[in-house]
């Protein structure tokens, strides 16, 4: 029953360099946890702490009931896929895959059988005798994956395994990864800065910033209920619009924009409104628009067009996703916001505010 548990993990390199600050979480069997965050948020360091490549300053790493905090990485029965793949250049693909098994003194019959199975699954059978130098990027990536799978580890750790692939291949491998790890029934910890990977692959996402977990939730909830301004802005593309509203008597204002505030938010002097571009639409004729503004930029993605609208007397901007077939006349448009899809944040702390 491997169940990866992290308790109050902290890593401190220098008095003011603390990439991981007090992180606790659990990853159950078959769960796919993604550590998502911008560069320098501590996600790779956290993965190295789990792997045992770095020792935590404080806290524990457990698999099941066993405390592995001081166990060397080789004895943890965890497999890791590195961003650079880290294949041994002087060994063939087969030797690369079997290296960890040979060290564990597994009989050579079984090793051969397991290599055969995993090579078959990943389509590497015809490459087994080649050296990594003779492989393409995608093939190296598969070898790195095979090296992890062949071990039947208790925990899988993946450090940005797709970031060195080109865009098309990345999409394809992402799909394969999902199939493979769905079948594994083991805890998977996946590090990435790519929100698409995080959203599509994971059963749970931990958004990290400055060594702290900002939110730990399933991908859909991260998207619909971001815990704070940072998460709201980091997850979702195109990025969420943020508007700083002045609040007066239950009404938030920004320039000409006036919005009734939900219950319980009216007693603050200022409040931040977040609304995703896809939750803004062109006001149909006959309705009163929430705001009016001047179109300053139209980016056509084919599937949709991203319209940047300047409104109010200041330079407030808002971006809206509009279906490609919709048109408007002149360079002024009226926009409406979906009230149910509005997110409210404390303008000081950035925390999510829930209407009561």
């Amino acid at each position, binding site marked *: 029953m491997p169940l990866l548990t992290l308790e109050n993990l902290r890593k401190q390199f220098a008095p003011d360099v603390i990439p991981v600050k007090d992180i606790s979480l659990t990853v159950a069997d078959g769960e796919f946890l993604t550590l998502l965050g911008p560069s320098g948020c501590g996600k790779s360091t956290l993965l*190295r702490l789990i*792997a*045992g*490549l770095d020792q935590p300053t404080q806290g524990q790493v457990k698999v099941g009931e066993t405390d592995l905090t001081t166990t*060397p*990485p*080789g*004895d943890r029965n*965890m*497999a*890791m896929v*590195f*961003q*650079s*793949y*880290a*294949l*041994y*250049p*002087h060994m063939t693909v087969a030797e690369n895959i079997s*290296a*960890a098994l040979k*060290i*564990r003194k597994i009989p050579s019959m079984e090793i051969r059988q397991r290599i055969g199975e995993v090579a078959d699954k990943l389509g590497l059978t015809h490459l087994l005798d080649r*050296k*990594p*130098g*003779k*492989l393409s*990027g995608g093939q*190296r990536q598969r070898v790195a994956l095979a*090296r992890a799978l062949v071990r039947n580890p208790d925990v899988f750790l993946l450090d940005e395994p797709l970031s*060195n692939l080109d865009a098309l291949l990345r999409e394809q491998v992402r799909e394969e990864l999902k199939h493979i790890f769905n079948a594994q029934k083991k805890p998977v910890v996946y590090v990435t800065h790519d929100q698409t990977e995080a959203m599509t692959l994971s059963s749970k996402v931990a958004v990290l910033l400055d060594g702290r977990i900002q939110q730990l939730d399933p991908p859909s909830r991260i998207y619909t209920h971001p815990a704070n301004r940072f998460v709201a802005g980091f997850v979702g593309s195109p990025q969420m619009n943020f508007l700083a509203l002045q609040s007066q008597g239950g009404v938030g204002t920004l320039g000409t924009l006036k919005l009734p505030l939900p219950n319980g938010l009216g007693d603050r002097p200022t409040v931040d409104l977040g609304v995703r571009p896809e939750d803004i639409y062109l006001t149909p004729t006959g309705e009163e628009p929430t705001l009016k503004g001047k179109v300053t930029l139209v980016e056509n993605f084919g599937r949709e067009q991203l319209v940047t609208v300047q409104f109010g007397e200041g330079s407030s901007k808002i971006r809206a996703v509009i279906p490609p077939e919709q048109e408007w006349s002149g360079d002024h448009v009226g926009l409406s916001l979906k009230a149910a899809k509005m997110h409210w944040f404390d303008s000081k702390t950035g925390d999510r505010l829930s209407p009561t």
Partner: protein
Amino acid sequence: MLKVQSPTTTKTLISPGRLLLWVGVILMVGFCLAPVLWQLLTSFKTNAAISTIPTIYWPNWNQLTAAHYIGLGGEFLRYMGNSFFVSFISTCLCLVVGAPAAYSLARLKIPGENIILGLILIVSLFPYVLLFLGLLEIVKAVGIGNNYIALIVPYTAINLPLTILVLRSFFQQLPKDLEDSAKMDGYNTVAMLQHIVLPMTIPALVTTGILTFIFAWNEFIFALTFITRPEMETIPVAVAKIGGASVFEIPYGPIAAATVLGTIPLVILVLLFQRRIVQGITAGAVKG
């Protein structure tokens, strides 16, 4: 019907640019090899042919001889053996001591690392003309004159700074992910160094090893000073001691023959390992 032009016909056409390149290459190689070829030619010419003016560039059969080589005698093989022994042992020692030092300097965060590196560099700044009188005193005091230890230890010491600095920069550019990966696979430190790091280090070891070997092979002053028994001499000393029948004769032929013989092992060595030197086997380890 569509005619397909065979690719071979296009390849046989030589563009003027390519021709110029090859002429340039041949001239350059000729220029670099000229002294060696000259030495080789001299070693096979008879004494009369060597001293003839105008110089004979293309000798006929009568002007060629192997006498200079035969004249060196069997003891020259012995000198070569001596040289080989001293150079080989000091090279091995140099790598065995230097590689771990370089690895630690590259991987560990040692306080005062820069000071250590500075000290290593300073050692290599001493001209060894300055050192050898002091070393001679030490050799005398310890009583290892006429012992190869007296050559091996100084050669190793003089070559260590270069070895450490070259290997350190090599280790620094080895991807650290490979070592992490090896740790995840379950290699302990010794096994990791042996099975993962060492095979990738071979090109660097061979390159620095050859430099060290060539230095030891060519070294003259220590070999002249610390070794006085004729049968223990190394090649540079032996060549220097080749004398003519009288003080008025310079034995060009025998000296040329001796230098050619002395160079051959080095040439063989470099040719043998050139693939190792040129090819970087780290290719393919990480995304390249």
